[in-house]
């Protein structure tokens, strides 16, 4: 099984201490990346021994949905209610904030490539952090 170089597989003892984070995938029908994002999320969960974790799917259809969810594009993955790929508040290096809208979200892979889905290594790192939170 492949693991990103920066994140070695968790030791069994650590896996036993992991909690199950709440996961939600926000999606919009105009963007074809939903299934790929879901598959990569499930693969990351399986890597971490969290394959039983439920993933709630929420479709956004209207501008009101966008405003309510502060939606910057499909797919958006919430881990414990937080957009794991959003720049931290006050991050001066983050640049211009992403506008809200029913659109496809632009991610950057760790190698700099543009992608319609998050870098699996970033996703896995965020899941590990959430699963190990007390």
């Amino acid at each position, binding site marked *: 099984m492949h693991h990103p170089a920066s994140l070695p597989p968790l030791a069994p003892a650590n896996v036993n201490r992991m909690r199950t984070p709440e996961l939600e995938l926000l999606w919009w029908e*105009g*963007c*074809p*990346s939903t299934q790929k994002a879901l598959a990569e999320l499930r693969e990351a969960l399986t890597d971490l021994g969290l394959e039983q974790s439920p993933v709630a799917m929420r479709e956004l259809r209207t501008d009101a949905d966008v405003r309510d969810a502060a939606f910057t594009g499909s797919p958006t993955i919430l881990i414990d209610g937080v957009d794991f790929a959003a720049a931290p508040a006050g991050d001066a290096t983050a640049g211009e904030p992403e*506008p809200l*809208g029913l*659109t*496809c*979200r*632009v*991610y950057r892979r760790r190698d700099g*490539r*543009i*992608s*319609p889905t998050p870098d699996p290594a970033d996703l896995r790192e965020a899941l590990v952090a959430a699963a190990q939170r007390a």
Partner: protein
Amino acid sequence: MNIHEHAPGFELPDTQGTTWSRDGDGAPATVIVFTCNHCPYALAWHERIADAARNYAGRGVRFLAINANDADRYPRDSPEAMKRRVTSEGWPMPYLHDATQEVARAYDAKTTPDLFVLDAAGTLRYRGAPDSDYDDPAQRASWLRDALDAVLAGEEPARAETKPVGCSIKWKR
């Protein structure tokens, strides 16, 4: 629009105010690329399409990029934002603004990107994606290049139509 149909004519302005039309003043082929500024698929494929434009320019092939997205709802697709991209990225093709979306509708464009290859007579010879994988730069827009090579050789593209892949065009409401 179907393969072998005559493509609809149009006149659209680019980011410099120059008007472009479907008819190519003797160009042996014209590639029309519906694209935009904010779609990850369009962005991921952009350099491959631009490289093809540079590579085929010497053979007289015209590339016209068209942005038809509703810029009111998606300000990143505004004419000003288009102009900034062309300037900062050194585009090898004009970037046209289809403000009324009539051209996109006439071509039945679905996504960004969505490519249409026309021969010298304005007949549609290929329609679809640049290649099989937006995530693999090594693909080098091979479906587009294969279609262009066939048209330039006076032959039928072996693969005349593929499914366009990308973000839906943002139609006005």
